[in-house]
């Protein structure tokens, strides 16, 4: 029983750990001992608070003070001032970027105001390495209720009525998926958790596993009860070491409490979970490829049907759901489908977790009700575009998704609206771009990722995407032709139609979507040999503005390839045939005499 007067919560997500939150914890523990306060103040390492931009974050309880950008060196001041004297350390408090006023708790920050946390309910609140804290937050109650008071059919019905859809990107109704697996006969069935999060810039699943691993374990057991599976498998990429470590601890604790194993809660139901490691291949997020990888085969997709529900892991009926989907399940059981239905939009219920990244002020992890508009996410929660620049587009759905431009800023975000707008929900990565981003280069970046990650099994994806990439390369180098633009469109559509799995079918999306919304930029690259955003090096030209050049020779002395000539106090000249467009002359010139065009 805790008789602590105060608690210090420190973010222990991967992001904050990388910025020394572990050292901060150690410093606090040491100092508390030194000051003789170890009996009164408890130090807790929690999961991600979401506001990664401001990390490492330290929260003080019970007064709920929110300290940002804390370093190990700040710990002594926090103890001396905040804990001993009860005075907040003002310089570490969050400052509203617009009004510049100090906000001392998270409730009043714009970043948190519009969020509703269901999947992230315990992230940043409990110690993920303590099953007791999870139980204190109604943990395993849902499993207990299901096992002792409800039939599998009743539970499946509840999930169906909640309208929960797969959070991994596909948006398939979760209850229906469970029902199909439950109905297929089989001597052994499997429940799989897809934790192979692969989109560049997405970290929703990792944060849930790091911050609240028990919620996933509990949901998998409920799924096992509903579908008749006794074995669960978590497929997680080996490059998530912290998530794996916390998951292992959670599994051990659940077994010790008898919440995994045989005869769970005296109901006669047996269930246990094993971990399977992935090598971090994007294609293994596709469920058939994921299953093959778990079987020890090459991570390549196979044709559906048969769906995993019929013939999955080792040929047995297998139910695959994503981490975030699972994290919603215990709450739906505890609070009921009717409650869940009150949140969200008409066809997409509940909330969605997004990883905000790119040219946005508040990079971080957020959870908002379905139907929130992009504008609210980007401007209210995200704090707008970095450096006051102009918003250009946002990429949702990662390399499989598409661009949403200013005209979609007021579109409510849900599965159907995003698809109608030419993008997709995806797993929840949101990369924001500003006026300085070249859309052709961005498309090339995403395509480069899929080319790299293509498993090579089918020709449209393996060869088609490579050719598509080469065309983009030509265009960004200023060697593209008008026919190339048409070819992008044609080839892109063929790849979409002819590829076997989701990776191939969606890989041309960034290209097609940027062509649709930013055709002018493609035309500028081809016709005018210029990159409007000034990002494509080959198309940028550095010249000397003769009126401004004082002949100081600074550019001449700094040019790494000797492309600049000129005498002292005379106008200099850049030889375009030698220039490598490194931009050094532009950076060095003190008179603004270098023109970038």
């Amino acid at each position: 029983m805790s008789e602590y007067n105060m608690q210090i919560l420190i973010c222990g997500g991967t992001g904050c750990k990388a910025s020394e939150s572990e050292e901060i914890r150690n410093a606090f523990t040491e100092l508390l001992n030194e000051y003789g306060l170890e009996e009164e103040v408890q130090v807790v390492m929690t999961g991600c608070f979401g506001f990664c931009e401001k990390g490492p974050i330290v929260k003080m309880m019970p007064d709920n003070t929110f300290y940002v950008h804390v370093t190990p060196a700040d710990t002594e001041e926090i103890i001396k001032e905040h804990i001993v004297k009860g005075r907040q350390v003002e310089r570490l408090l969050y400052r509203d970027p617009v009004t510049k006023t100090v906000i001392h708790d998270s409730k009043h920050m714009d970043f948190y105001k519009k969020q509703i946390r269901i999947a992230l309910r315990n992230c940043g609140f409990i110690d993920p390495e303590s099953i007791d804290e999870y139980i204190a937050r109604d943990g395993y109650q849902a499993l207990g209720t299901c096992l002792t008071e409800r039939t599998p059919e009743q539970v499946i019905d509840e999930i169906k009525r909640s309208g929960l859809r797969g959070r991994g990107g596909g948006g398939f109704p979760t209850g229906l998926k469970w029902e199909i697996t439950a109905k297929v006969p089989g001597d052994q069935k499997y429940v799989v958790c897809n934790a192979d999060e692969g989109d560049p810039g997405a970290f929703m699943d990792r944060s849930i596993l790091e911050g609240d691993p028990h919620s996933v374990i509990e949901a998998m057991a409920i799924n096992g009860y509903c579908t008749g599976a006794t074995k669960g498998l978590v497929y997680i990429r080996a490059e998530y070491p912290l998530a794996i470590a916390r998951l292992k601890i959670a599994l051990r604790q659940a077994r010790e409490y008898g919440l995994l194993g045989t005869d769970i809660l005296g109901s006669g139901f047996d269930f246990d979970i094993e971990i399977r490691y992935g090598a971090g291949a994007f294609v293994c997020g596709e469920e058939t490829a994921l299953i093959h990888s778990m079987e020890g085969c090459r991570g390549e997709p196979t044709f559906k049907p048969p769906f995993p529900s019929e013939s999955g892991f080792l040929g047995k009926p297998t139910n695959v759901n994503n981490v975030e989907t699972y994290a919603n399940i215990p709450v739906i059981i505890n609070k009921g489908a009717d409650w869940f239905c009150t949140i969200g939009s008409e066809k997409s219920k509940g909330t969605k977790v997004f990883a905000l990244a790119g040219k946005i002020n508040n990079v971080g992890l957020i959870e908002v009700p379905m139907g929130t508009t992009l504008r609210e996410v980007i401007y209210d929660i995200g704090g707008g575009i970095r450096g006051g620049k102009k918003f250009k587009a946002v990429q949702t759905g990662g390399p499989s998704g598409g661009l949403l431009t200013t005209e979609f800023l007021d579109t409510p975000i849900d599965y159907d609206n995003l698809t109608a707008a030419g993008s997709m929900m995806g797993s929840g990565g949101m990369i924001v771009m500003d006026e300085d981003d070249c859309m052709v280069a961005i498309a090339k970046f995403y395509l480069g990722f899929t080319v790299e990650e293509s498993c090579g099994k089918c020709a449209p994806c393996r060869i088609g995407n490579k050719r598509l990439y080469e065309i983009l390369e030509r265009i960004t180098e200023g060697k593209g032709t008008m026919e190339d633009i048409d070819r992008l469109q044609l080839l892109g559509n063929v790849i979409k139609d002819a590829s076997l799995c989701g990776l191939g079918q969606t890989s041309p999306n960034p290209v097609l979507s940027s062509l649709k919304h930013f055709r002018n930029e493609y035309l500028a690259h081809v016709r005018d040999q210029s990159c409007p955003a000034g990002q494509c090096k080959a198309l940028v030209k550095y010249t000397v503005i003769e009126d401004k050049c004082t002949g100081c020779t600074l550019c001449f002395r700094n040019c790494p390839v000797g492309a600049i000539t000129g005498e002292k106090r005379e106008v200099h000249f850049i030889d375009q045939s030698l220039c490598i467009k490194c931009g050094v002359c532009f950076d060095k010139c003190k008179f603004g005499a270098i023109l970038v065009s």
Partner: protein
Amino acid sequence: MNKITSLADLKKMKDQVQNRLKMRENSDAVETLVQIKVGMATCGIASGAKDTMNFFVEETSHQAIDAVVTQTGCMGFCYAEPTVEVTLPGKEPVVFGHVDKAKAREIIDRYIIKGELVDGMIPMNFKTIHD
């Protein structure tokens, strides 16, 4: 570690561990709870504010009062230390002086639980920039 073998067991377990998170849960909705601020500047600590604070923490948790006990700096009434500011939900804050354990018990039993006025209040006649 003992196994949890039934839903009833699990619920019992929850009741046992729930207290651990109470402080964190309360801190999310401070306005709806009893807020007790103990002046813990040098003068307060020297007059025994630490014991007063510990007493409030133990007693509120013992009597299952939803309260948030925090420390604060010098309130200026150094002649009356230890000073304690109590804010009942929806009421104006009230400051009490010379709060030792006996006084603290009186404040909890009479002011916090029953809402009766208690001797030893210090009239507040200043404003802060937040008012």
